[in-house]
């Protein structure tokens, strides 16, 4: 079993499946989303939908502050979260004298994990590690098995139930639904053309910063130190550390409260980390089943 173990032993540094690109390999790029300068304008949501021609998906007034998009899914690859709080932004009192209000805004996106559960579990090789170190669903391959949907620790991916706008299903199936899974591609096509992703370009205050991951991590550390010096409440980086449960995010964040307040898991771990143990467990179970049935067949009467 140790072969399996070694094979799956994640080299913590590099994203898996990236080293195969050899000279085609580009510098790993990603997002650093600094929510302390996010003005909640949702330009990123629109830029993403305009560029990727994503169908609009429902006009529901949720009452959840100014967020009527609610979550990342097949038709929303950028989602701005809004959380109004009776807490001061800086130190002990800011905003109006008495209570001290703050309004957290965060543009959520796929994390493009170093060890990506969706990528690992995808049975068709539709999800793949690109030469930029990002994780992309190939729409000409995905057969809508949906395994990546529950595998993602952040709940980013989803199957599109709307009518297909590209590569429609064959008529004889009588199905209209697109049926494939969609998520942020970190603008894989734009990167191929040497352009920056649409959301990063549109962001008016550069809350969304795109660039080489290492450089972004340094910038984030400096930013965190500055906010600490300015006594901002709750400032913390989320997904910056390559030793975290998914080997570090390709798109990480500076938050002003605990991750769960934004709908993010406090300690996400890629499920593949426990897969070797599961496989060994399965083989044991299979062996027991084989032996058990055999034994029960032989030991005992025919009738």
């Amino acid at each position, binding site marked *: 079993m140790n072969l399996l173990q070694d*094979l799956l032993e994640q080299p913590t540094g590099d994203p*898996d*499946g*990236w*080293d*195969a*690109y050899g000279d*085609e390999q580009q510098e790993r790029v990603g997002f650093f989303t600094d929510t302390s300068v996010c003005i909640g*304008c*949702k*330009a990123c*949501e*629109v*830029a993403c939908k*305009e*560029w990727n021609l994503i169908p609009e998906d429902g006009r529901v007034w949720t009452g959840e502050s100014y967020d009527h998009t609610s979550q990342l899914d097949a038709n929303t690859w950028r989602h701005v979260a809004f959380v109004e709080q009776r807490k001061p932004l800086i130190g002990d009192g800011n905003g109006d004298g008495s209570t001290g209000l703050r309004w957290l805004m965060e543009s959520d996106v796929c994390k493009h994990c170093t060890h990506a559960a969706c*990528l*690992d579990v995808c049975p068709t*090789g*539709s999800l*793949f*590690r*690109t*030469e930029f170190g990002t994780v*992309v669903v*190939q729409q*000409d*391959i995905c057969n809508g098995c949906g395994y990546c949907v529950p595998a993602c620790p952040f709940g980013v991916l989803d199957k599109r139930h709307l009518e297909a706008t590209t590569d429609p299903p064959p008529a004889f199936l009588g199905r209209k639904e697109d049926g494939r899974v969609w998520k942020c591609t970190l*603008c*894989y*096509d*734009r990167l*191929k*053309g040497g*352009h920056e992703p*649409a959301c990063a*370009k*549109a*962001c*008016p205050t*550069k809350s969304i910063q795109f660039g080489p991951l290492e450089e972004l991590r340094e910038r984030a550390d400096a930013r965190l130190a500055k906010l600490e010096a300015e006594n901002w409440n709750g400032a913390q980086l989320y997904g910056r550390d390559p030793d975290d449960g998914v080997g570090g995010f390709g798109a990480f964040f500076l938050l002003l409260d605990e991750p769960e307040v934004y709908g993010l898991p406090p300690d996400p771990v890629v499920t593949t980390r426990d897969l070797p143990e599961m496989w060994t467990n399965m083989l044991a179970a299979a062996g027991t089943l084989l032996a058990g049935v055999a034994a029960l067949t032989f030991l005992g009467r025919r009738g």
Partner: protein
Amino acid sequence: MALSKLLESWPVLRQLREGDPLGLGKAVQSPRSQMLVPRIDEAEHVVHSICPYCAVGCGQLVYVRDGEVTHIEGDPASPISRGRLCPKGQASKSYVQSPLREYKVKYRRPYGTRWEELSLDDAMDMIADRIVETRAKTWRKKTGGGAPANRTMAIGNLGGATLDNEENYLIKKLMTALGIVQVENQARI
């Protein structure tokens, strides 16, 4: 022949050949992904434009192919916006291609209960006639108090802070010459 091509392209084999045993990267990349090209690189021409929404005046790049706008995004050259846009500016393509956009003249007859078709030229003639006629009937050389007026108070023009300077110039020039003084726009609102 087909078999060899299949074997050569079958990712299972590429997993071994291209050093991607887990099948997470290059081996599973499809030809379509490999040759992906961004839409803006396939545009026939790009036009420098300015966002039609608020007065910040963000620069926009409008990409065109086969006579259609294929994409609109920020113009990095603009010193004001530096390539950035707000949600409205970024939705400009969906605005100019809105599902509710009107492309035909619509005419409602007096006391009518539905819209009717009308050609653009007929509409222009009918509007010109109405202006000439209404103006003639309601012309005031002098005000009630005898002061000079040279105007008609029976016609007004509203708009528009959303229009170009050149358009506003022609409107004010034409209306003044016609003696139409009730000319207003959103600057007042």
